[in-house]
């Protein structure tokens, strides 16, 4: 399994490294409004990364290569499950360090500039739209008879929507557009608002993503390459 995980790292590291600047930019843009939960914004992104392990490389090259080596499908799926959790741990640590660094070095002038351009609002719009598109993809895939891809995209879309949800938890005033979708999560939010601490939110997010990864494993075991 260790060999499999090492091999996964070799094959996928570029994709992961590519995600680091995206996470950083997200954080920088969202930092001014994220107050005490600044890194919560980045968390869903961390959880999306492991899912990418299962979505696999373009044309499934990485997985085809693994399947051509002395690994069983079950072994690959288990290895990726553990890789995913390790990756999440590393990502979380990275966000903590980045968050502290931003807290120390973030210039006030930049906060005003970002606020003026409403870049964070734009980013949130894009995020929300991406989530909707990802949720809509399965319909398209289902129509095309590609059930496996449909399930993977449901997982990704749910992750992004979770991001929006958790942002509501920590944002005092969201952009107007989000009033529209607020209703969708309002009941859940009201239910949790009284007692839901940051730790509880994190635990729920981890539990949901555990289920998500299990779903990915199940998909992987049945996917043809």
């Amino acid at each position, binding site marked *: 399994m260790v060999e499999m995980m090492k091999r996964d790292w070799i*094959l996928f590291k570029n994709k992961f490294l590519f995600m680091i600047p995206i996470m950083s930019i997200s954080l920088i843009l969202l930092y001014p409004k994220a107050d005490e939960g600044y890194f919560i914004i980045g968390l869903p992104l961390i959880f999306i990364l492991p899912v990418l392990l299962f979505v696999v490389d373009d044309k499934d090259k990485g997985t085809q290569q693994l399947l051509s080596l*002395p690994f069983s499908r079950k072994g690959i799926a288990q290895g990726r499950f553990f890789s995913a959790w390790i990756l999440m741990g590393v990502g979380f640590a990275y966000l903590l360090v980045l968050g502290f660094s931003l807290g120390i070095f973030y210039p006030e002038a930049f906060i005003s500039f970002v606020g003026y351009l409403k870049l964070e609002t734009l980013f949130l719009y894009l995020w929300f739209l991406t989530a909707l598109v990802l949720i809509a993809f399965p319909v398209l895939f289902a129509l095309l008879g590609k059930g496996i891809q449909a399930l993977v995209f449901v997982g990704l879309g749910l992750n992004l929507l979770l991001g929006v949800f958790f942002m509501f938890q920590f944002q005092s005033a969201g952009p107007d557009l989000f009033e529209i979708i607020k209703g969708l999560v309002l009941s859940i939010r009201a239910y949790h608002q009284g007692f839901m601490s940051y730790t509880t939110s994190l635990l729920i997010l981890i539990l949901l993503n555990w289920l998500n990864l299990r779903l990915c494993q199940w998909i992987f075991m049945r996917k043809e390459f």
Partner: protein
Amino acid sequence: MNALEIRDLNKRFPKFHLQDINISLPQGFAMGLVGRNGAGKTTLFKIIMNHLFNDSGSIQINGLHHRRDEALAKSQIAYVADAPAFSAELSLQTLKNAFATVYKTWDEQKFQTMVAKFQLNLRSNYKSLSKGMKTKFYLALSLCHDAQLLLLDEPTAGLDPVVRREVLDLLRQELQDEKKAVLISTHVTSDLEGIADYLTIIDNGRILMSESRETISDTWRLIKLDKIAPQISSDSSIEGQSKTAFGYSLLTSNYPAIRSLIPQDTVIERPNYEDIMIHMVKGDS
């Protein structure tokens, strides 16, 4: 025990059906799997490697079930896919490291010998290599862990004659080890001459014939006639026929059985693998 044993294998796609595939490849022998593009060769390889799932039937590699004992079975296989799934931006050294770590039987000395022979620079990126160099590197990677079964999916496709010869020489060298078995697919039948002990022809998802070189040499013949008598063309040993500029050419799998039906002055030839493929796949009957 056979190195590869495929029994009653079926795999159905919306527009293609790999149907009732039976293959037995003994240890120490090479089998050529010949067929046109889209005949089902790559699909068969992918099922053996568990990239695709078979609907029914069984596959055993040295007695190991290809799915139940997947990791162990694969450790005995060297698989050279028709399109290598390497990450193009990685260096040859990195790719080699990734391969070498997963095989307990990795032979670094053999790899370095091949690298030197093929003049490969391990610091190069995979994407910077020519088609021929990519194939050589892929073969070097695949043949250095003492695999007992070599699955080669069109390893010579798209190569220039010089590289093609080098690759075929390498395969001949590998075959000198009598423990190794090879299943090699191609649509260039001349690649198999002098390599394949068995010839299997696949077309449209079905195996048309699978015979040893000895059987083909002993009983298969090309019969060249000006005109075909009905009692000859209807004989069950006639595997295919084609029209030529000078008359007709018939392929029989049992010449001794129909020898008495053939006129005295008829031209009779031993067919090569290409003759067999053309008559069986593209023949007029």
